[in-house]
């Protein structure tokens, strides 16, 4: 078979046109695609004063195209855009360095706040403590007859707020019962 024959045969084949899609497929495709498909959108700067409502697109395509159609960042953003994450990182590091969760003696000392608000009581020292008031064991029996042992701790949580400048001391004690089940065999 020669090249000329190939061309003639190919031309014969090209005479056949693919069958058009059924109307329902065309309708499905039209409903899936954005109405602005295939055309670039103008910025609207030179449009009428009261423009028509913006075109609506199907959600799926709109969602997919949204990241790609985001407005370009200005040039200053490229130069100084790194400042925002750098400042956030610096603030986080400073907060971690200044934050002291607890003192070595187990008490939590909170540094006084800045004295910008004069009328309010100034809390120079806040102590949060807990005292063990009582400790005892209790034995109970399950409906199945199996014994269960509990360790019961009575705590008194204390919060003391002092303002020496004004001579204010606020103490609050809250009782708390802590019940911990224990395996009978391990006791």
């Amino acid at each position: 078979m020669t090249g000329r024959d190939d061309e003639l045969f190919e031309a014969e084949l090209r005479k056949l046109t693919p069958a058009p899609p059924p109307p329902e497929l065309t309708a499905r495709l039209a409903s899936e695609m954005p109405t602005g498909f295939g055309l670039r959108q103008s910025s609207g700067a030179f449009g009428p004063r009261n423009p028509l409502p913006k075109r609506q697109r199907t959600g799926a395509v709109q969602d997919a195209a949204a990241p790609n159609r985001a407005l370009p960042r200005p040039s200053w953003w490229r130069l100084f855009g790194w400042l925002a994450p750098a400042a956030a990182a610096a603030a986080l590091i400073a907060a971690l360095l200044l934050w002291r969760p607890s003192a070595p003696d187990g008490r939590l000392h909170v540094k006084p706040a800045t004295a910008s608000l004069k009328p309010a009581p100034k809390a120079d020292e806040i102590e949060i403590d807990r005292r063990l008031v009582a400790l005892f064991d209790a034995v109970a029996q399950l409906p199945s007859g199996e014994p269960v042992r509990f360790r019961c701790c009575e705590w008194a949580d204390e919060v003391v707020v002092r303002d020496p400048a004004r001579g204010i001391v606020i103490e609050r004690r809250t009782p708390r019962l802590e019940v911990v089940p224990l395996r009978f065999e391990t006791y």
Partner: protein
Amino acid sequence: MDESPQQTDWRRWLEDHAPKFLLFARQQARSEADAQDLVQEAVVEAARRRADGLPPPPALVFATIRRRAIDLARCEDRRTGRELAAADPTPVGWFDTSVEERERNQLIQDAMNRLPEMYREVVTLKVWGGLTFAEIADTLGIPANTAASRYRYGLAELRKLTKEVLA
């Protein structure tokens, strides 16, 4: 209601390309319903990939149809042939058929069906898809030289099969 220029543009693009996509999808899928679904999914997916809002290139849609057809075939392998046959009882013509050419077109379709798939898809993309060998190579994931040689072999084989029809 009158259509906007954008809608007209979209419909024109669809009228130009959808028949080619459907022809290729019908060769890749096992049923007409699957072929139509492949076209719909591939067109939408290809349009999503375009960041500039322009119509997707046909080669991208063809490649997406083929990839999705492979995925679909893997899923359908779990289904029985009986279920597939029941789902698509009537064969669909691949080509636009006028009354006098119906028989000839059916013979060519039968000949295309008898072609090995590796030749059939290259011939389809080249003749009716209008792709270049480079685009066919990208679509099928093969070298361009391989696409060209498959096209020559496929054309020769198809000519043998349709010798009586197109002589």
